[in-house]
């Protein structure tokens, strides 16, 4: 057996994460022991070889059509989510902490949703401003008084986490409507297994490929009948996340339907088959509330199913996620989640929020305006990293523009300090360089909550940028959660 020769200047010897917390190396005063073997193997690789294997991987993703669609003026282009082959590694104790934190958060948000659609105790007690909830455009009065199985509203949750300079994980955002990205978690792992089996051998990485089974289990638990027909409802092939819809339908072994495949008759949902109408009992919908039922919500929606809300209200069909969860993942409501956790669970948050100011509150607005150059200002309604102003990196004109917008509509914004996102070694053009990453774990909740051991690690591939969203040039990495026994 030959031990890989360690050259004096190996692949990682000139790597320097700077002041940031590094996911592979840890902090300077907190060396990451659990990644020692992985670092040793990486260091022994040849850079050109690494690049070649990385290119093979991306070529394969393209050929397999693991892509999302980007629309330009002229046409639709298939893009892969750029894939970086150096994994992001999470130790067993770190994961235990994250798992508990995510589970706690899901529990609190589900209790919150049940409360605001029933007794509204939290509003009556003044913990959260009433207008923030009832005035939220994602609050659905149709859900008031409706009971859902196990009081679970958010069956599929994606929690965006970042790690600050000290290595502390913080929640940046909750995604409780239709979180996406889990297909990349599983496909990235498959890709690594094909391209880097030598790197993964004997590391003890927790598997991620049972996500589909867990999702199907939850979909069956919440169904109104014993042997339910589960389907996945997609907006269709033109949706940018269509690949994920395919992936999940296939993993669950259920039909991928579009709105036009379903009809509601006598408050029951059916799908159109070659042999006539067949009943449907449980729907994993990848369609926002607004498009779900043109009779109840957006009347122009051609993607939805007329009458499905009534079928849902009668308990004839289960929907995941439930209608009206958007109010819980609102960026303004986010600020109150720590207080929610205390209120419903009498616990402290296991994973803290990023320190956030709600600009609808006069003091917070003043503070934000006074410290604009040091803060990140986010519109509460936008997704995908749009509309964000990062103070320290903004030009004078951009800051003034932001100030004007804040003054015009303060309640549309929150502000946060710049979080020095942790970095991870990433294959760049000429060398391995540090790039910022975040983490989105996925939690499935039917009767109880299960958290996929791993999650989507998004990486900001452009040097210096903090925005990791795929629509803004981000890529992804495989996320390795190590088994308990691993050193």
């Amino acid at each position: 057996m030959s031990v890989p020769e360690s050259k004096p200047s190996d692949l990682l010897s000139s790597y320097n994460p700077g002041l940031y917390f590094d996911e592979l190396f840890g902090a300077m005063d907190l060396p990451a022991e659990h990644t020692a073997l992985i670092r040793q193997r990486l260091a022994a690789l040849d850079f050109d070889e690494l690049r070649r294997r990385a290119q093979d991987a991306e070529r394969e993703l393209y050929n397999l059509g693991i892509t999302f669609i980007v629309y330009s003026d002229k046409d639709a282009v298939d893009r892969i989510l750029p894939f970086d082959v150096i994994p992001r590694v999470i130790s067993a104790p770190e994961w235990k902490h994250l798992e508990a934190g995510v589970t706690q958060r899901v529990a609190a948000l589900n209790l919150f949703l049940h409360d605001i659609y029933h007794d509204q105790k939290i509003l009556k007690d003044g913990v959260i401003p009433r207008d923030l909830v009832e005035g939220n455009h994602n609050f659905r009065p149709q859900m008031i008084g409706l009971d859902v199985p196990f009081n679970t509203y958010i069956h599929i949750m994606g929690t965006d986490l970042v790690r600050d300079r000290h290595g502390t994980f913080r929640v940046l955002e909750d995604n409780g409507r239709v979180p996406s990205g889990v297909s990349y978690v599983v496909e990235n792992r498959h890709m690594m297994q094909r391209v880097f089996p030598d790197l993964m051998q004997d590391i003890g990485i927790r598997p991620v490929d049972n996500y589909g089974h867990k999702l199907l289990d939850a979909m069956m638990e919440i169904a109104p009948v014993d042997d339910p027909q589960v389907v996945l409802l997609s907006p269709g092939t033109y949706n940018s996340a269509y690949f994920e819809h395919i992936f999940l339908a296939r993993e669950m072994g259920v039909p991928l339907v579009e709105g036009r495949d379903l009809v509601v008759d006598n408050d029951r949902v059916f799908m159109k088959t070659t042999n006539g109408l067949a009943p449907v009992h449980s729907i994993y919908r990848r369609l926002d509330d607004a498009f779900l039922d043109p009779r109840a919500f957006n009347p122009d929606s051609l993607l939805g199913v007329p009458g499905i809300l009534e079928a849902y209200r009668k308990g004839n069909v289960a929907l995941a996620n439930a209608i009206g969860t958007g109010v819980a993942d609102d960026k303004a409501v986010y600020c109150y989640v720590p207080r929610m956790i205390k209120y419903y669970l009498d616990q402290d948050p296991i994973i803290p929020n990023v320190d956030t100011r709600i600009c609808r509150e006069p003091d917070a607005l003043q503070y934000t305006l006074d410290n604009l150059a040091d803060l990140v200002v986010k519109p509460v309604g936008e997704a995908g990293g749009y509309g964000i102003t990062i103070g320290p990196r903004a030009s004078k004109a951009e800051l003034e523009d932001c100030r004007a917008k804040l003054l015009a509509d303060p309640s549309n914004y929150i502000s946060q300090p710049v979080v020095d996102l942790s970095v991870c070694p990433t294959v760049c053009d000429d060398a391995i360089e540090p790039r910022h990453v975040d983490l989105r774990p996925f939690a499935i909740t039917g009767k109880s909550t299960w958290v996929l051991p791993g999650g989507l690690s998004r990486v900001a591939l452009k040097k210096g940028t903090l925005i990791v969203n795929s629509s803004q040039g981000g890529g992804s990495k495989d996320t390795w959660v190590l088994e308990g026994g691993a050193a």
Partner: protein
Amino acid sequence: MNLLSRYAECIFWMARYMERAENLARILDVHETFARDTRGATNWFSIVQLNADEKDFFSRHDRPTAEAVIHYYMFDGQNQNSLLSMLRMARENARTLRPWISTEMWTQINVFHNKLLEMSVKDVAAQNLSKVCTWIKEECQTHTGITEGTFYRDQGWYFYQMGKYIERADQTTRLLDIKYHTLLPSPAEVGSTLDVSQWTTVLRCTAGYHAFRRVYPRGMSPTTVAGFMLFNEGFPRSVVMCVRQIDGVLTRMRSRYDLRGGSAAMERVDELLAALLSRPIDAVLRDGLHEYLDWIQLQLSVVTTEIAQAFFGAQPPLAVQSQSQ
């Protein structure tokens, strides 16, 4: 397991577009051979006529040169009948079907489409056309092989077979029509060296030459070749063979899956088969082969409509498709 109507339709059309692409490659190949034979550019025009594309073609080209016609039928995304359009539609259907078909089926179509997208007419300078056509044929045959080896045998498989055989029967009538209608020789030329070589080419393009020789070791006449391509019971591209397959597939599918619809389609196919079996080739040629081929195409189109109404739902067509040929 239930099959969504929309999926059934997409499977049917995916099969048709792949079969159609293979046949277009065969037709382009045969034209190259004809064009070489002293007749010059007029022969390139015949393929435009064959597809009734004159109006659309001349809206973008002045003259039917080899290059213009090849571009038009290979890479012109605006032309519904180009290879690129067919592959795009096959791929769109396959993309919709990805939860249903095997990953290998999808990947092959996806890579095939992407390769075609990267090619240009320069890569197909006329002397290379035959090579490119061979490549396309082989990609289509790879698709057929992957499908045979990986497509799960449930209802979807039956719709795939129906689509494939309807398209193949239709394409065989078109290929035959090129020779007999568009390239109709003057009576003096019948049986000439050129005439015989063209019939040989038609047979070679459908990979039927050797089989034909086994059946007719001596000589080659319009009657024997047309009869072989229409009615032979062993030739996999003959119209009768294809219609028999459609008939069998439809019958087995309806009984195996207890499907209520489709009796009208069944009757149509039975009638078509009976008509094909009852008419001797001499009578067909006497009354006009072209008219007969047209009639077969019409019957196949009616069968398609009946299948769509029985199984794909009453709405306007859902899958990416074009029946304009």
